[in-house]
């Protein structure tokens, strides 16, 4: 049941190119969405067992032979799986209409599914090297997807993205190798146990620095972020949503914090370094976002800034901070997915993404404008939308931990966030409509539908934040906090 998260997307992806020869649109559309809907359903089904048992360990026998296909599913993984399934389903719904002018839907969906399989795998494996591997699966698919339009921008962005992340993941693998060399094993538990027995603070410190760089580049922490504002805007809108909404969080934030919490142990030093990095990202990227003309580029910088929040919350290390960080991760995945899809709608409707050319679209395209507003306000942290609560929890956690400086910066950065999101609203949707856009039409059905679903989730989670928080976030945060207790400090 748990393996279906990896196997089903891969299987569908394998058959899609062949099916694509016979049916260009319909069957790939249906098949992909059905597969993703199944995964979403599956992840919801898993809530109860996780709630009751805490952790699920599953083994698979291959023709009677015992093979090492072991997954350990705890609250944190499940939370990530659910987020991935939910957002990617909306994204593939959006693609039904959006991909019409790209063509080659089957190929696109196949890559998308491989990427999802990679992310699911990354989330499920309890093994350092496998984390790296699945990260590469998702990454290779994402390079191709960024360049899917084959335009100049896409190729340039994809190339820079590839070259930077190859270097980064090489360093991450180097760090894994060193840990492997010291402890002789690769699984989380064994490595964590080994590190407890050894006293190797400096070497482990260097390893952690490698991880911070390797996974931090995937998560686009400043100063490892430079690829993101090129790659995310250039990709087709659904892929931008996928990358910003999920990939940076799964292959960056999840991988980094999974290793830190489950293997190395969150220590005060690490906490300090990561919080500083998170804060720098938050502020620098927010300032950069202010200066953008391109909607998607602004959103991309905003992603960096919001990842800063997530890292800040997770790095704080208190249960409340972890919960806030995870909650913000979910909210940002939904809201940023929504905003990128929405920017795709804008581009589909008007053919441009330049804020200076847009204006007054609100009256013509109410659904697009309304959902954009919801997403923007949610990320900016306006009550009662979902983003407000997660930011509030992060700030409260910071204050609780007596990190007043960070709390202040977090609040100021959220003002900056609101500022540039209002800039989008003002320039694109409000104000006088220019002659050019008098005859535009609302986006096609599936595009609007995906936007509306995500916007509703933003609102729903905001209003019913207590039950959502209890069902999804708390188990995940508990799983992480347990990790802290299990992993003894390695001397720092």
């Amino acid at each position: 049941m748990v393996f279906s998260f990896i196997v089903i997307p891969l299987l569908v992806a394998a058959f899609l190119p062949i099916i694509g020869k016979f049916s260009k649109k319909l069957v790939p559309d249906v098949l992909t969405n059905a597969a993703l809907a199944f995964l979403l359903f599956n992840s919801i089904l898993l809530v109860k067992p996780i709630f009751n048992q805490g952790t699920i360990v599953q083994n698979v026998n291959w023709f009677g032979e015992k093979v090492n296909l072991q997954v350990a599913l705890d609250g944190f993984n499940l939370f990530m799986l659910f987020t991935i399934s939910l957002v990617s389903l909306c994204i593939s719904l959006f693609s039904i209409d959006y991909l019409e002018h790209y063509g080659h839907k089957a190929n696109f969906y196949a890559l998308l599914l491989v990427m999802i399989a990679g992310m699911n795998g990354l989330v499920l494996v309890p093994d350092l090297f496998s984390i790296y591997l699945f990260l590469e699966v998702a990454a290779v698919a994402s390079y191709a997807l960024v360049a899917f339009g084959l335009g100049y921008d896409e190729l340039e962005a994809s190339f820079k993205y590839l070259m930077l992340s190859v270097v980064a993941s090489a360093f991450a693998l180097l760090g894994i190798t060193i840990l492997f060399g010291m402890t002789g094993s690769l699984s989380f538990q064994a490595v964590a146990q080994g590190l407890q027995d050894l006293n190797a603070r400096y070497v482990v410190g260097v390893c952690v620095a490698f991880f911070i760089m390797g996974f931090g580049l995937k998560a686009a922490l400043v100063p490892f972020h430079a690829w993101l504002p090129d790659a995310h805007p250039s990709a087709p809108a659904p892929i931008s949503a996928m990358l910003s909404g999920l990939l940076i969080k799964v292959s960056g934030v999840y991988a980094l914090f999974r290793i830190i919490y489950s293997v190395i142990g969150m220590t005060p030093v690490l906490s300090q370094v990561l919080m500083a990095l998170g804060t720098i990202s938050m502020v620098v990227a927010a300032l950069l976002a202010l200066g953008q003309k391109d909607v998607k580029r602004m959103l991309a910088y905003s992603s960096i800034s919001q990842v800063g929040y997530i890292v800040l919350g997770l790095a704080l290390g208190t249960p409340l901070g972890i919960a806030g960080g995870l909650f913000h991760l979910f909210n940002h995945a939904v809201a940023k997915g929504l905003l990128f899809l929405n920017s795709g709608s804008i581009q589909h409707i008007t053919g441009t993404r330049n804020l200076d050319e847009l204006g007054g679209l609100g009256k013509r395209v109410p659904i697009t404008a309304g959902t954009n507003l919801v997403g923007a306000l949610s990320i900016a942290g306006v009550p009662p939308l979902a983003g407000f609560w997660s930011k509030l929890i992060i700030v409260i956690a910071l204050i609780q931990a007596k990190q007043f400086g960070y709390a202040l910066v977090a609040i100021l950065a959220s003002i900056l966030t609101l500022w540039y999101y209002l800039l989008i609203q003002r320039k694109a949707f409000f104000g006088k409509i220019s002659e050019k856009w008098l005859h535009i039409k609302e986006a096609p059905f599936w595009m609007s539908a995906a936007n509306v679903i995500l916007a509703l989730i933003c609102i729903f989670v905001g209003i019913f934040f207590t039950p959502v928080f209890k069902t999804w976030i708390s188990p995940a945060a508990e799983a992480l906090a347990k990790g802290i207790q299990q992993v003894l400090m390695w001397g720092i």
Partner: protein
Amino acid sequence: MSNLWFLYLFFSALLIFIGIYCLLTMRNLIKLFIAVEIISKGVSLAIVATGAVKNSVLLAQSLAITYIVVEVSLVATALALIINIYKKNKSLDVRLLSKLKG
């Protein structure tokens, strides 16, 4: 035995240095990718050497092989990208790839 590990790590670090130096200074896209290959050689050397030194060479071998498969995949993707860029740009100069900025 463990001292031998540092010998291999020493060479592996050299390889990675060469790769990064090339990435930082060179301009030809293909050259840059050759540099990436050199870095990954450094990493695979580190993996196998670690396994050999730590008595788990079988495990390290399987890791190295998997890593090579990943490399092939990456090379294919990257070279396809490079060819596409060449088609658009009629040049392999990385400095031309700076349209996206700000």
